[in-house]
């Protein structure tokens, strides 16, 4: 079991340098961590219809929509600084980019309010009910 005393610090000052980026949640696992020509291949070929966006990735048809971060919430992309092997030591993550909305994509099916990620966005408001202060 990993060590329960190690702490991961969030370098909050890195927020100042973080830029807004477009983020897309894809319905496939891409075995890659690193650069990609997203705007050239993906954004450039994305089409906006009334209710949904369409695009192809690797020859497969995707349908998606843009959703906003819940009120009072911000999207952050965290990146570990000087990743090391040991889980005994404290770690640090910094905010590498921020976003206020994201686009999620389904494989072939049109986006609906029943999609799990849309439903997951209910969580902060329900969490507020569970965790907010109760009156005496």
């Amino acid at each position, binding site marked *: 079991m990993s060590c329960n005393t190690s702490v991961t610090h969030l370098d909050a000052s890195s927020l100042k340098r973080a830029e807004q980026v477009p983020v897309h949640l894809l319905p*496939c*696992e891409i*075995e890659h961590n690193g650069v990609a*020509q997203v705007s050239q*291949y993906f954004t450039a070929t994305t089409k906006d219809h009334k209710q949904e966006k369409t695009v192809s990735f690797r020859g*497969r048809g995707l349908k998606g929509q843009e959703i906003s971060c819940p009120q009072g919430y911000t999207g952050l992309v965290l990146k570990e600084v000087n990743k090391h092997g040991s889980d005994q030591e404290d770690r640090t993550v910094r905010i590498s980019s921020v976003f206020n909305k994201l686009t999620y994509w389904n494989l072939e099916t049109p986006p609906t309010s029943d999609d799990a990620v849309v439903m*997951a966005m209910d*969580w902060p408001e329900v969490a507020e009910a569970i965790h907010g202060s109760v009156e005496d």
Partner: protein
Amino acid sequence: MMDLNPFEADNSVSCRLASQIPEVCRTEDCCLGVDEAGRGPVLGPMVYGICFCPISKNQELKDLKVADSKTLTEAERENLFQKLDEAKSYVGWALDVLSPNVISTSMLQRTKYNLNALSHDTAIGLIQFALDSGVQVKEVFVDTVGPAEKYEQKLSHLFPGIEVTVRPKADSLFPVVSAASICAKVARDRAVERWKFTENLGEVDTDYGSGYPNDPKTKAWLLKYLDPVFGYPQFVRFSWSTAQTLMDSQGVSVHWDDDEEDGEKAAKRQNNRSMLSYFSAPAEGEKTHQTHRFFTDRRLKSLNSL
């Protein structure tokens, strides 16, 4: 003339192009030929074409010396298309330009839509288009690569009252099929030549070769334009094994929930999991915790490390 602008305005979807319907075709019994161009290439659209004229004009069409387009050079085909255009008082045509993106996404669909089905449906759609336009179709001639007999039965059944002939190499046997072949091939050549990449790739080398997978020029082009993550621009048919093999060997792996190997296993795993969570009531005293369905419905779970 043939105007490809409607297709070029959005080459990620398919497009129908058609000539004016000659008046005489609405009043006289007509023959109609069906042929395709660009079925084999890994690049660019596949074009389905029909050509029709009154049966009485068959000899005149023959005299235009339209022959199987494959035996002609591109210039000769353009020239013959010119002649067909000049004969527009009695010859009409219609084309379905099937975008390579449509071919890829259809063939790779969850419920696979294979090229034969796509071809048949397109041919049927075009014949229906001629009928809907008032063309008095009495005879249909179709060039095919697959088994002719079954296809012929299918079409005869769908279009009762029309005499259907499906033949391999029909384009060299029936002038109206040769004419359809020329229209399709001309459109395919032009679409490839003038392909506008919607991707932001800057200047793209257009030395694609024939587009057939075994053409060294085509191969070289496919190697040059392979992106490790995205694979290819939509100009390439992702469903062709040539493209798949190159992406598998030189690109990063991408896994989908319906992948044959990964997906089935994953589905099985998920099945087991849900079976367990629904039905295995925790044994007495056993320390198990069931996450509430609010969370499982939303695929939310606690973490114990970042």
